[in-house]
Structures are given as structure tokens and as C-alpha cells.
């Protein structure tokens, strides 16, 4: 199907870092099943560096590909850098997403941030709450565009 780029199809069909992590230092889950996509991101942190990361995702092809790509991008990164990961960067790394799937890359960005926040909270690491905005889940907004039909 030409709906997605080869990169998206590759990450969808061969997702990197997929699976649960038993001894994660931080876990972030965003999205909801009613909307049709949920991402859960696990991170392992050593000396401020994300040494390992994995995900499980319920969602469409681009949701799974976005999760996979985001894990690859933040693996080995200092935490502060991972917090700078933007949905745009995820979408670009996938050679683009269809317009109505861009929210999947937003979800990936939010999942990373939620995992970092969980890590900070669990390890009593002080942070400025403003860096996470109001609530990590609330930025996840789709626009209800007109339904198409086949």
C-alpha cells in the first residue's frame, strides 16, 4: 500500500525495541483505546543517559512505526536531549506521515516525555513542572476531520 513511506512500512513490519521491560526505570503511557491508539514506553537510565528503551503499542501502522522510530532516536541519549525530541523529528525520520496520521508522531513524543517524567517522579529527581506543560496527555489532540469512505 502506498499510504506509507518505505521507512514507515519497515518500522511497522520490523519494529525495533518492541516488548515490555521488566526492570524499567521509567514507564510512560499515552493515548486511549477509545481513540484507537495507546503507546507505552519503557526507559532504563544510567548516569543521566537512556541506556535502554522499549515500547508496546496498540494502534495503526503509523503508531507502531512512530513508537519504533522514537525508541531508536532516544536510545543512548542524555535525558535532557530526549526531552527535546519533537514529533516533527519523528515524522521526518520516517520520511513523513500522511497528514491525518501526524498525531501518531505526537503520541510518540508524548510517550517519551511521559516515561522521563515517570523516571523523575520515581527517583525523586527535582524538575521544573513547566517542561512537561499542563499534562502530558492533554496535548494529544486530533482534529475530527470529515470521514472518507471506501
Amino acid at each position: 500500500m502506498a499510504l506509507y513511506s518505505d521507512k514507515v512500512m519497515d518500522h511497522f513490519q520490523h519494529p525495533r525495541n518492541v516488548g515490555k521491560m521488566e526492570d524499567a526505570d521509567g514507564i510512560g503511557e499515552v493515548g486511549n483505546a477509545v481513540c484507537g491508539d495507546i503507546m507505552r514506553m519503557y526507559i532504563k537510565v544510567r548516569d543521566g543517559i537512556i541506556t535502554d528503551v522499549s515500547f508496546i503499542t496498540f494502534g495503526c501502522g503509523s503508531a507502531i512505526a512512530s513508537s519504533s522510530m522514537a525508541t531508536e532516536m532516544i536510545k543512548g541519549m542524555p535525558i535532557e536531549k530526549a526531552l527535546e525530541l519533537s514529533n516533527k523529528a519523528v515524522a521526518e525520520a520516517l520520511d513523513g506521515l500522511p497528514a491525518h496520521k501526524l498525531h501518531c508522531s505526537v503520541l510518540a513524543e508524548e510517550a517519551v516525555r511521559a516515561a522521563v517524567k515517570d523516571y523523575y517522579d520515581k527517583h525523586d529527581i527535582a524538575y521544573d513542572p513547566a517542561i512537561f506543560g499542563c499534562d502530558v496527555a492533554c496535548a494529544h489532540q486530533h482534529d475530527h476531520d470529515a470521514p472518507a469512505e471506501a
Partner: protein
Amino acid sequence: MYVYADNAATTSLSKKALEAMTPYFCETYGNASSLHSPGQRAAEALQRARETVAGAIHADFKEIYFTGGGSEADNQAILTGAAIGARKGKKHIISTAFEHHAVLHTLDKLKKQGYEITLLDVHENGVVTARQVADAIREDTALVTVMFVNNEIGTIQPIAEIGAVCRERGVLFHTDAVQAVGHIPVDVEALNVDMLSMAAHKFHGPKGVGALYARRGVPLVNVIEGGQQERGKRGGTENIPGIVGMAAALEEAVTGLDRNMAYVTALREKLIGGLSKIPHSRLNGDREKRVPGTVNFCFEGIEGESLLLLLDARGIAASSGSACTSGSLDPSHVLLALGLPHEIAHGSLRLSIDAYNTEEEIDHIIRSVPEVVDYLRDMSPVWDALERGETPHLI
């Protein structure tokens, strides 16, 4: 092996239809309105096709109006019912919640023009009753429009009974039979319908051609204004190759109907049996009142688009009612009309088979779907929560 199991979306063109159409592109290409002999030969082909299509549904050829497909036929039927009603001050229309958008969006348009629309509940099994229609009919009801076979779940509606109610109460009755014609017996006399829509590409005819049956005496309102084609009810030079192809495909489908129905029903039963073994799955729509070839399942904990893409990679073409495949945020209105929660409706799979499918293909589907469902469940946080008992299984 690549298995095409999306025949409710569209079908391949039958060889017979292709052969029947071929001469009308480069040899007999005249305009059926022309007086010269190439034109008259086209007009004769058009007439033969009209008689064939009429014969297939037990109508008179004067009651067949060729259109540019099923959607156009639906639009024209509904706008006709609305216009006839309005002349008598009747502006109430009854339909169902799970019609095709060709019907629902036309009704939306009429609503904005001051019509009142009642959409009947289709129940958990996806079947309306004649009783519901009888109860909904009012003094000012202009039209009842109920689909014959639902395109997503394949349930058959009691059209003959609804038709009888409408006839008794003097209300015009239309049925969208796009998923029925060529797949189950359709007899406009027995069904008591006043108008009926069909589309060639659902029964191995060409795309972009369909027909509206309108009982003698039903004054159709034009959707397309133009010349005197189709007795002035549908302007535009007739698509002769398409119409000829439609007639050939329909004749073939009707000739083989009994045999095909038995064959496809057997394949379907095997398919349902195989897929029902998947834990926390559910067959959507009534177990008995269904067209031979359309099967719709929901699998808990997974999302339909990823299921489709992985099935495609394994050589199976199917479809889904998930939001991601509809291009909107909400899953299919059909599945929601059955009362399914969003999170279940997102995990739907429609397989629509017909006489072109083989038993080996069904085996391939029965082998592949459980594997893909397992694979996706293994990476699904929703499934994880269900399995750990954090959220209750809904199916």
C-alpha cells in the same frame, strides 16, 4: 498466494463481462442517441442490456434507469421520495442508522432543507424489523429507505415484510440493494419495493455503472439534468460498454446464483468456524440472517489498520471499520450502530468472499489471521491490561 477477500468493496471484472464489453469501445462506439447505424447498434445493445437487467430482478425494462453507480442511484431514489412527499406536505423520512453514506449523507442534506429523519435502531444483531418501520410511519412520512444487505457486516434486512408494511400504509419504499443483487435472490415484485439501487462492480461488472429500478408510476427526479437519455431522467451519453458489461455480469451471476450461494456459504461457514477459535473474538451481525460472503469479526486488544497491513503483507486483502482506515477519528458508524464500544470497533476485520475464492484461500486466511492477531496482541498495551486483569474483557 494472494487472496482477494474484499469483494464487498469491489470485485474483479468477469471474463464474460469483459468479452461482452470489448466490441463497444472501438467497433460499436456510436452514441445511442444518433440516428446512423453505429448509433442504432449502440441503442440496440442498450435496450438488450436494459431487458437483461430488468429480467434479473423481475422488473419491466421500462423500470430500469442506468446510473453512474450505486451512490447515484441511492441519491436519486431518496431525492425522488423527498420531492414527491414535499408536494403533499410530507417531509418525514425513515431509514436506519447503518446505511451506506450514499444514503446517510443524502438524508443529512435533506435534514438541512427541513426534512425530519428517523434512523431506526439496528439492534445488536444488525437487523431491523418491519414492526419498527410500522411504528415509525406517520401521517407525514414521505419515504422509507432501508438497505437490503449491510455492506460491512452482511446482515440481510426483512425487505419483503417492510415493503408490505409500506404498501399497506401507502408510503414509498426504497432499498439500497447494492450488496444484494447478484448475491441473493432479488425479485422486486415479491419484495414490494418501489425503488431499488444496484451497482455493477459488486457482482463482477465494471465500476462506475449502476441502475435504479423505479416502479412504473414513480416520477423520478433528476440528479443529472441533460438530454433525453434514460427517458429524460438521467442526462448524459450512456456508458454503453459499462452498461453492456453490467448486464453480462448480472446475467452470469443470476444464472449461477443457487450454486454460488451454496458454495460461498460453505466457504463462509468454514471461515467463521476457523476465526471463532481466536479467543476474545466476536462475529458481528446476526448468525443466520446474512449474505453468503461477508464476514465481520472484532478482535479485542488490537487495531484494525495494523491488522490489515500485516494481512496484506501475508497475501490477504481485507478491510476494517477502524478509525484509522476510515480516515476519521471514529470507527465505522455501522459497528457503533450495533452498540459496540469504540475500543472494540477499532479491532474489526471484514472479509468478503465470493464464488471466485477457493477453499485453499480460506485455509490460508484461517492460518494467517490468528498468527497476526497474536503478534499484534503481544505488542499491545490494551491486551496487556486485559490479560493482567486491569481492565475487564468486553468480548
